């Protein structure tokens, strides 16, 4: 393993994050605050508790997941798309590094950024609502695994994309709807029975459910199922990336 290369890629990617630290920090704080004003105070005051949890607190795990997933994808996809776009990818391709090292560097940095933003949102949320975390260890595990797996997905999107429009397409058309319909702001038990069945095909449901369980001890689907889902998703992404580098798809002519 060329750990020096992994560290170099990681450091360089984190450098981009620190150059825009203020935006990176402010935008999640601001958007979370807005969600709390709208959903927590304005609408939330008219909604009863959900599964015995105050609505304001109930949406916190969903909000964190929403941001962490979208941030992971956008960070990782941009991270690998940008070198392709400006041509600096030549250096990666001609360096003594294999796919795992490139992925560790880029995905590691993207996941770190997303994790940071997730924690910032958690901190911001705790200013608005009373939060207690039932299983802190599991909470961290779910958060880290989500950051990693969605950064892997973002990495694939970044390699697949041929232009900036495509870079935005998958997050906009697929991921955002899946996240919004994945129980970020509601419990799936609130849905009509037929939709409760359909929604189980949405992989995001398992992540949000598991994450919410780590806060409140209640979940829509069993926690083990959530863990298996996220583990399986991570393995799938890794397999796709392994294939990409083996064949050179869209990176090596």
């Amino acid at each position: 393993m060329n750990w020096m290369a992994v560290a170099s890629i990681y450091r360089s990617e984190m450098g981009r994050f620190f150059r825009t630290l203020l935006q990176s920090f402010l935008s999640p704080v601001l958007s979370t605050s807005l969600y709390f004003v709208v959903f927590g105070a304005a609408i939330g005051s008219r909604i009863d508790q959900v599964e015995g949890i105050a609505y304001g607190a109930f949406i916190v795990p969903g909000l964190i997941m929403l941001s962490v997933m979208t941030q992971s994808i956008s960070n990782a996809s941009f991270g690998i798309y940008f070198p392709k776009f400006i041509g600096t990818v030549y250096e990666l391709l001609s360096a003594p590094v294999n796919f795992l090292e490139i992925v560790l560097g880029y995905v590691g940095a993207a996941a770190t950024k997303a994790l940071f933003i997730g924690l910032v949102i958690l901190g911001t949320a705790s200013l608005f609502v009373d939060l207690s975390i039932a299983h802190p260890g599991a909470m961290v595990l779910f958060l880290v695994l989500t950051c990693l797996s969605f950064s892997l997905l973002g990495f694939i999107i970044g390699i697949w994309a041929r232009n900036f429009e495509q870079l935005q397409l998958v997050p906009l058309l697929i991921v955002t709807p899946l996240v919004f319909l994945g129980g970020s702001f509601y419990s799936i038990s609130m849905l009509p029975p037929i939709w409760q069945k359909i929604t189980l095909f949405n992989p995001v449901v398992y992540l949000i459910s598991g994450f919410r369980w780590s806060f409140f001890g209640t979940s829509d689907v069993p926690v083990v199922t959530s863990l298996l889902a996220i583990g399986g998703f991570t393995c799938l992404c890794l397999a796709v990336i392994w294939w990409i580098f083996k064949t050179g798809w869209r990176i090596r002519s």
Partner: protein
Amino acid sequence: MSAILSIRDLRKTYEGGFEALKGASLEIEEGEILALLGPNGAGKTTLISTVCGITTPTSGSVTVGGHDIAQEFRAARRLIGLVPQEINLEPFETVWNSVRFSRGLFGKPRNDALLEDILKKLSLWDKRRSQIKELSGGMKRRVLIAKALSHEPRILFLDEPTAGVDVELRKDMWEVVRELKAAGVTIILTTHYIEEAEAIADRVGVITKGQILLVEDKVALMARMGQKQLEVQLSEPIEAIPQALSSYGLVLAREGRSLIYSYDIRAERTGITALLNDVAGAGLVLADVVTRQSSLEDIFVGLVAGEQA
């Protein structure tokens, strides 16, 4: 000396069906400077990209320092530094971080003293904290060179390094190239400026239509292919070459105002003295005498034209 880079029957057909390399073979000795000349689209960049790992060959083999570029890609790539033709740099990165990144990427431990030395030689030291987008085009090219040198390569590829570069940078660059050669680094450069190849290369390779036409010692090539011409300009035009001068193989030019005599520069006797005596003996009055030697450019143009004919 032994071959540090060995390219055997390398073929590359791109997805669209374009055959960029049609069985190129090349052996490069350690420590030499090889200039690769060829018209646009000849396959120069594809050849370099394939050796460096950016392009996957369709068939053929390449070994770098004895390491196969596919089987032992790490060992092979560690030996290679690449200065690409296009200015591909992350615009928001500082010069220092960009160079440091390259060194790390190649698995070399941090060595600030070495990077400082490289940046100073390339007149980049004062700019080390500048973001790359603030630099001029020439400065950016220097950064590309610094990045390639940062991991102490044994082979340096310079793909059209002086295209659109000012005189100052060109001078600095050749100074660096000379120093690298003195340190035993093998250098392969492609260039459109044939006079550069003429000035700096040990051997010259000519590539056209995806094939390497020839690789030869520069001096030997120029001597073998080189011809010298003597043009005798006359004060009065003549209709035909006088009988007395028929043995010289002269060509009448400029509407009868010039006699062109071609001779071999390596020959012991060039026959110039005899010719000039006979010209005077034939009653012709000389206005001027001019000599010309074919340059590498003439040789190159001749070769490529011959191939395309």
